[in-house]
């Protein structure tokens, strides 16, 4: 089977952070696998219920990131209702789907495939494929592939959410942590007066604590 590798590097370069590059690479793979006009990942904004574009390949990739549309309608709504991968063909015969898709991507597709992104038991978004090509393939095989890609994407999103959470916790730590200055000051004052053996032990403990902090911070920065 001939397959054209289409990876638009300008989008990857502008993505900036490794997590976003990973998301982008998955939608690029999905687009290549299905020979699709466009692929996208949309996540649910819990506050509004809107779907927000997190990664786009193909039609709309230059302007859609971060844009949003109401959740619960169109095929994205179907996927969130059923929690299952779905395909709708002959979309152009259905003004609703065509309009929804056109409003969100600026492109009117003939067919849409979509699968839920399930993270920790919740449907947090939708992976969507517009106009897969006409190469001979099994419809059921396409559905299975789409489901596997959605699982991969959801796993990546889960990791990203965890990373963002730990980054946020780390950023918040100095504001909530204890002020150790008085303690360190007291140790510095008492250490010269301590017995030689006790002094050596305390010094070794302080050096170990310093090394541990240095290693941890180096890992976090990497």
């Amino acid at each position, binding site marked *: 089977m001939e397959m054209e590798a289409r990876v638009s590097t300008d989008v990857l370069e502008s993505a900036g952070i490794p997590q976003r590059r990973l998301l982008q690479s998955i939608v690029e793979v999905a687009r290549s696998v299905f020979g699709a006009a466009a692929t996208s990942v949309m996540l*649910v904004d819990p506050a509004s*219920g809107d779907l927000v574009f997190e990664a786009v390949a193909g039609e709309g990739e230059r302007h859609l990131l971060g844009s949003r549309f109401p*959740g*619960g*309608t169109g095929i994205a*709504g*179907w996927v*969130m*209702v*059923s*929690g*299952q*991968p*779905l*395909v*709708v*063909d*002959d*979309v152009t*015969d*259905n*003004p*609703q*789907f065509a309009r929804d898709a056109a409003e969100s991507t600026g492109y009117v597709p003939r067919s849409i495939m979509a*699968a*839920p992104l*399930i993270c920790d*038991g*919740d*449907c*947090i978004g939708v992976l969507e494929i517009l106009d897969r090509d006409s190469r001979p393939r*099994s*419809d*059921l095989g396409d*559905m*299975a592939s789409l*489901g*596997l890609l*959605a*699982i991969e994407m959801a796993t990546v999103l889960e990791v990203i959410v965890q990373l963002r959470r730990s980054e946020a916790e780390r950023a918040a730590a100095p504001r909530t942590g204890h002020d150790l200055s008085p303690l360190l000051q007291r140790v510095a004052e008492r250490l010269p007066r301590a017995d030689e053996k006790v002094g050596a032990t305390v010094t070794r403990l302080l050096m170990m604590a310093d090394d541990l902090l240095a290693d941890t911070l180096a890992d976090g920065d990497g």
Partner: protein
Amino acid sequence: MPASAMPEERFDVSPLGTVTPDWAWGGANGSGIRVCLLDSGVEADHPLVGGLDGAVDVIADEDGGLKVVPTDPVDNAGHGTACASVIRSVAPAALLTSVRVLSSGKTGSGAALLTGLGWAVEQGFDVINMSLSTTRTDFRAALRDLADSAYFRRCVIVASAHNMPVHSYPWRFPSVISVASHDNPDPMTYYYNPAPPVEFYARGVRVPVAGLGGRRILTTGNSFATPHIAGICALILSKHRWLTPFQLKSVLYLAAENVAVPDGDGGARVD
């Protein structure tokens, strides 16, 4: 699973020699059978739906819980309307009721699903179509209890199997009939699966269904295979009103394309 890959299922000892597709549903139209559709709602006046017997919605109550209230027969997403049209195409005289468990088509909640299913079981519907599932494990035990209650009350739940490697419910429960897709275009052809948890494969590829606004579209997915089996259950029950869920599932098995003898002259396959 492609129709070409369906395994032949031998049934070496069968005292039920007369159970054939014709015995099971020949001449039936679903008349008198109450079918409940748990979904996004139904556009009742769609020509492919042809009206509803009732429509209710699961909404928040004053105490922060959920309650079931009568509603207009509408569907913001369209998924329920599509499924309703499949049931109607198979069992044209069945009485359809819509239970909207996902208002506005948002992500919904397992709680609304539980409330809607509990109401449907309480109302004693003959068949409940669930082209949906929940992946929330904290609802698993309560859903299983409800599915068991339905089973013992002669209320058959027909549920979409999940075709992604995730844990979801209620389709995995033995007390329900679980359905995935085959690619044969005949709406009355279904297959028994000897390797559960999926029990039956029904038409689920490029299925002509109702689209919102009176339109027609082609859809693919287990969501649309499930109402084929729900419709066939309605046909069988309208002809054999006495069947329990266990017996109904047995009849489905015996009349499956890969189990029943071709031409229907001798019951289940014994070769």
